[in-house]
């Protein structure tokens, strides 16, 4: 047995020459290794970006070839260069609580690659780096992580008082998000104090009330802080009243209110009237002037309210949830998906791709493309894919509210074919989006890179924002193509406005716009670069062990123990899966961006019948 294992190890080692590195390869590796060596004091995100592109170049990619020479060093190259790219992106693209959450993710969570380069876990350790590579963002970054020196003297003066006994070291010793939490607590207490003080006009007159209120409101950012924000609003109003000033909204407040009110009325206006109305509204004309604009004909919307009196939503029973799901999409005896959703999805390339996934034979052995769709009460959300349970869920409230707007219960809707078609269309963007997540898991399993294991035995690959971008892309393309075939523009009203808005933003700016749009909404989810850094950092122990075993197998193969043979095999597999996951993910994102640009080119010029203004 040992002899067989030895043969396998030697065979693996013998395979290495096919991954031989050229002098140019060596130079690239040296440049990229120097960049991430803290002693060489580079840590350049621009160089890191060039390195990642170069390491992913070639077939097989340079990083794959290098991993067969030195998997530990290759893993570190990928982890650290990606971590630098990720940090730069966070610093320049995100701020405030979202930015803080993102920085906490890359600096304070386990497997912190940045920390290996002296950037973290305390954010203050990265200030010099930010000053060097994103100098215009240094002040914003310091504020984002709520470092003591950026709190401003109103906060530090109060926090240093005997009430809080805080100082710089103690404050900066806290984690990033803990600082936000502490500031919220502080602001709540100070709000109550301020309200109490304001009862004494003489005392209150000595305070710079506007400054205090502004600072306190900046720290009352959590949902549970709402009552305190309301207290400050009331306090501001009272102070103005007591000062004898007329209580008038600011120009911006008034204009914002005007436009907010007007927006609901504008929904039914024809597009030709919008420009005139906008200009008039913003140029100080009265939005409420009778006869100021002409009502359009309106139109039937997703809710289908034309001529129908809506009712209060009626909860489905568990049996109805099952029946509705089955009517939307199920698999017939021949293994073909069928149902209202399938009919809708077969109208578009993105939808056909989704349907085809559920009958793709290459995923059948692993059962990874098994359809498991249902309605379930999940208050507030629209729908989701659960990689652990491997099911797609749409919130039951979605169907209940949809039916109610048509004056029906879901039970009644299920007897209305037109209504069922409309519901299928309404939820189809979510289904395409979530099915793509299932598809991502299936592709990972098929490629053998599903090394994220769940306790129930299911598995997938690491979750990064790249997955969300891809799902959003397919969902947007589905809506755009569907509507280009079915009535054009007006058909977008059949979708939830949030979904249609994604389609619009995709058409305006492509996948880059989707990522920019979504990044602040997913601050806890790793970007592609951040995910790569974390995965290779977490595998670093195994890479180090593998390197030792590789060396021993070369020099003293006869001394290898059975356990070392097993470790050699296991660690090789473990590292190979990570390199394969990384190179697949990288290439997939590049290919999809190119595909998205081509799609926009096709549907942005002729699909929707827009007139082009003359220049």
């Amino acid at each position, binding site marked *: 047995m040992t002899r067989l294992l030895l043969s396998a190890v030697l065979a693996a080692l013998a395979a290495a020459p096919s991954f031989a590195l050229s002098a140019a390869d060596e130079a690239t590796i040296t440049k990229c290794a120097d960049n991430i060596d803290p002693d060489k004091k580079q840590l350049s995100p621009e160089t890191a*970006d060039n390195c990642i592109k170069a390491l992913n170049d070639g077939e097989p990619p340079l990083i794959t070839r290098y991993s067969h020479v030195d998997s530990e060093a290759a893993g570190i190259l990928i982890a650290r260069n990606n971590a630098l*790219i990720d940090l*730069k992106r966070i610093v*320049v*693209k995100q701020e*405030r*609580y979202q930015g803080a959450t993102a920085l906490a993710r890359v600096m304070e969570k386990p497997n912190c690659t940045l920390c290996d380069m002296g950037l973290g876990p305390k954010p203050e350790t990265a200030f010099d780096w930010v000053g060097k590579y*994103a100098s*215009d*963002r240094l002040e914003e970054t310091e504020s984002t992580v709520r470092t003591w020196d950026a709190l*401003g003297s*109103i906060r530090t*003066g*109060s926090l240093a*008082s005997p009430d809080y006994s805080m100082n710089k070291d103690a404050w900066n010793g806290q984690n990033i998000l803990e600082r936000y939490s502490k500031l919220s607590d502080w602001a709540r207490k100070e709000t109550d*104090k*301020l309200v*109490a*003080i304001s009862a004494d006009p003489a*005392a209150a007159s000595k*305070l*710079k009330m506007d*400054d*205090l209120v*502004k600072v306190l409101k900046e720290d009352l950012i959590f949902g549970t802080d709402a009552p305190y924000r309301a207290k400050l609003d009331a306090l501001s109003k009272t102070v103005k009243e007591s000062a004898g000033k007329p209580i008038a909204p*600011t120009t*911006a407040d008034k*204009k*914002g209110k005007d436009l907010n009110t007007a*927006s*609901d*009325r504008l*929904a039914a*206006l024809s*597009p030709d009237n*919008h*420009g005139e109305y*906008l200009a008039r509204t913003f140029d100080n004309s009265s939005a409420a002037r009778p006869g100021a604009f002409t009502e359009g004909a309106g139109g039937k919307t997703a809710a289908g309210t034309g001529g129908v009196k809506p009712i209060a939503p009626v909860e489905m029973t568990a049996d109805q949830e099952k029946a509705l799901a089955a009517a939307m999409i199920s698999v017939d005896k021949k293994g073909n998906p069928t149902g209202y959703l399938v009919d809708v999805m077969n109208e578009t390339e993105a939808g056909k791709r989704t349907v085809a996934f559920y009958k793709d034979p290459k995923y059948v052995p692993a059962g990874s493309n098994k359809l498991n769709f249902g309605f379930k009460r999940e208050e507030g*959300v629209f729908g989701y894919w659960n990689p652990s349970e491997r099911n797609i869920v749409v919130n039951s409230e979605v169907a209940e*509210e949809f039916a109610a707007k048509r004056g029906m219960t879901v039970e009644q809707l299920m007897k209305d074919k037109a209504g069922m078609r409309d519901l299928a269309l309404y939820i189809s963007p979510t289904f395409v989006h979530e099915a793509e997540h299932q598809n991502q898991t299936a592709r990972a399993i098929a490629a053998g890179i599903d090394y994220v294991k769940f306790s129930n035995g299911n598995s997938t690959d690491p979750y990064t924002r790249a997955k969300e971008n891809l799902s959003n892309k397919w969902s947007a393309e589905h809506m*755009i193509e569907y*509507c280009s075939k079915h009535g054009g*523009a007006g058909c*977008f*009203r059949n979708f939830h406005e*949030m979904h249609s808005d994604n389609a*619009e*933003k995709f*058409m*305006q*700016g492509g996948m*880059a716009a989707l990522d920019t749009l979504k990044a602040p909404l*997913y601050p806890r989810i790793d970007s592609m670069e951040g995910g790569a850094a974390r995965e290779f950092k977490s595998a670093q122990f195994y890479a180090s062990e593998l390197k030792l075993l590789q060396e021993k197998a070369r020099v003293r193969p006869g001394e290898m123990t059975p356990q070392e043979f097993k470790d050699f095999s296991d660690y090789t597999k473990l590292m190979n899966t990570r390199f394969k996951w990384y190179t697949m993910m990288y290439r997939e994102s590049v290919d999809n961006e190119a595909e998205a640009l081509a799609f926009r080119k096709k549907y*942005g010029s002729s699909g*929707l*019948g*827009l007139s*082009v*203004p003359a*220049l």
Partner: protein
Amino acid sequence: MRKHLLYVSLLLAACPALAVAPAGQTYTEGKYFTFKVPDGWVKKEEGLGLSDSEKKVFGTDFFGPYSGELGVRLGVHYYAPGNPVQPTAEKFIKLHAAPAIGVNLDGKVYGKVKAGKAGNYYAKVFERKTYEYKPENALHPKKIHIYEKFYVVPVKNGFFVLNYYAPMDLARANLKSFETAVSSFRPLMR
């Protein structure tokens, strides 16, 4: 007594002014354009990924005051011929001065495209009122009103876009800063 001590701690703290960013300066984007940045606005550098030269799009964004999660933004970009993002000025206007998907969603408002000037250069100007939806993937997300204004300056080779993006409650108060920046705009190539 307790109330008095608290008052003192806040009063002392309240005296200094809040931090103010440096006064506005002229910003120069390589060989493409210059404009004057509003006082105190903060530059937001482009992220990595495709480089400017790969995209053939050159420019930057500056951020002003915030309202909740969203800030006021001023962007100035040059789109070179052959760029894959916004190939022509006409296409850009088509995608932004009217619904990119051809329908006015959820009460968005699109102004007419009019003639105007950015600095001393002829431009096509339009406004719109759009939304952001938060939180993501909610059945009933909050709809945040956004005001935007665009100046599109076509030149012989490519075109420039100056755009303003602001949560509605900050839109009016900061529009003048944007217009001042627009009036200072100067292309360095045509």
